[in-house]
């Protein structure tokens, strides 16, 4: 039996609903990983060791173990200690924290690379260290790592397929469900791949817009 794409249009509603969930989970996790990344970077660089060391352990957990395992831990594991998260929330927390740790590494390096004259100039105007970080150093550090953070966000989109295993009806799981009904894996996995690719293009477009906007301010 050859390929038959005529079955596709009848199931596009399910596929597109799945795509909508993929976009939702990607955007929510991206936002969490962005602000989480800044927060983690500040913890890693500026807090007392009593805070920093436990944080390092947490960071190791997220960098050194498979994302899939982390999702299982958050969704199935936490229930045992009374934290019962809906699958979507568990997915966002898992993806968001996982990529926050990677973003934090980038942002830490960028913070260190901001010219120390910037902090000095802010302090001489009378800003506290916290104010200087918030208004002067961190905005510049973040601006400098927008391109690699953008790459992380595209990896995040692709890894969002993993939340299908905890039952979020995102694009991959939707495709699987349609395949269960039609026995047409090749067609629907290809359709899903095409939809991922389109979302990817949209993300790259957004990233380029952001980069163009910040190009002047360097």
């Amino acid at each position, binding site marked *: 039996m050859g390929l038959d794409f005529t079955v596709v249009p009848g199931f596009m509603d399910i596929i597109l609903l799945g795509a909508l969930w993929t976009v939702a989970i990607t955007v929510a996790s991206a936002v969490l990983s962005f602000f989480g990344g800044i927060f983690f970077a500040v913890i890693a660089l500026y807090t007392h060791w009593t805070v920093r060391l436990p944080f390092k352990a947490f960071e190791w957990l997220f960098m050194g173990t498979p994302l899939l395992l982390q999702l299982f831990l958050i969704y199935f594991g936490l229930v045992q200690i009374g934290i019962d998260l809906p699958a979507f929330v568990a997915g966002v927390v898992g993806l968001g924290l996982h990529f926050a740790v990677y973003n934090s590494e980038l942002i830490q390096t960028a913070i260190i690379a901001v010219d120390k004259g910037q902090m000095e100039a802010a302090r001489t*105007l*009378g800003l506290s260290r916290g104010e200087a970080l918030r208004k002067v150093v961190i905005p*510049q550090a973040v601006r400098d790592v927008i391109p690699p953070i953008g790459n992380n966000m595209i990896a995040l989109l692709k890894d969002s397929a993993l939340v299908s295993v905890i039952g979020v009806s995102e694009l991959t799981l939707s495709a699987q469900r349609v395949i269960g009904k039609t026995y047409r894996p090749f067609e629907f996995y290809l359709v899903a791949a095409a939809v991922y690719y389109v979302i990817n293009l949209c993300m790259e477009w957004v990233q380029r817009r952001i980069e163009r906007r*910040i190009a*002047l301010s*360097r």
Partner: protein
Amino acid sequence: MTEEKHFVEIRHAKKSFGTLEVLKDINLTVERGQIVGIIGSSGSGKSTLLRAINDLDPLSGGEVWLDGVQVNKSLPHRQYEKHINAMRQQVGMVFQHFNLFPHLTVRDNVTMAPKLLKGISNDEAETLAREQLEHVGMLEKIDAFPSQLSGGQKQRVAIARALAMKPKLMLFDEATSALDPELVEEVNQVMKKLAEEHMTMIIVTHEMDFAASVCDRVLFMEKGVVVEEGPPEVIFKNPEKQRTREFLRKHIEGAA
């Protein structure tokens, strides 16, 4: 204080980096409206002394007083931070490398600190930015980013940024040293204008002509001590100390 009150007073300032003594028992007084120049070769401690005045490089020993308040008084950490931030709001500083905030427009460079620290409204901030930029001749660049400006323009904006906090005292740390020669004059003009308005200023500089023309008093520093101080006519034309004469002669040869 037992003796008469000076506007700025540095008493027995000492500073070491490890075993290297950068400042060895320096005393300096500046009166309100005075302009004091500090000259000397690299590594003489002149920038360190300037940076000690707003505690950017804290002294190892000695006291800094501004307008009757000790800048580097000993306080518990949190209280000291509050105190020093309040002191620094009264002291403007201009750096050799400008240190403008590249992610902010010229307008926001000028208004960021007053908005954050003095809580002025957006309208007040706009008026303040226009007023300060007009003063340094940079109003037309109000919407530009620092990357779009020449070095001289950047430094004029940096001066406007410092003045926007309405400081009592301005510190200039080799403000024109990083500029192309043809851009030095526009910055010097702005500093002269401030001098005419009787701003109290302490100026670390390599430009002897400029120091001679604006300063009321000039200090020559070498190896962490003040070798000689006096009015510019004396320091530049007829210095007492052999070391001062040698420095000036080398400097003139170097410049020529």
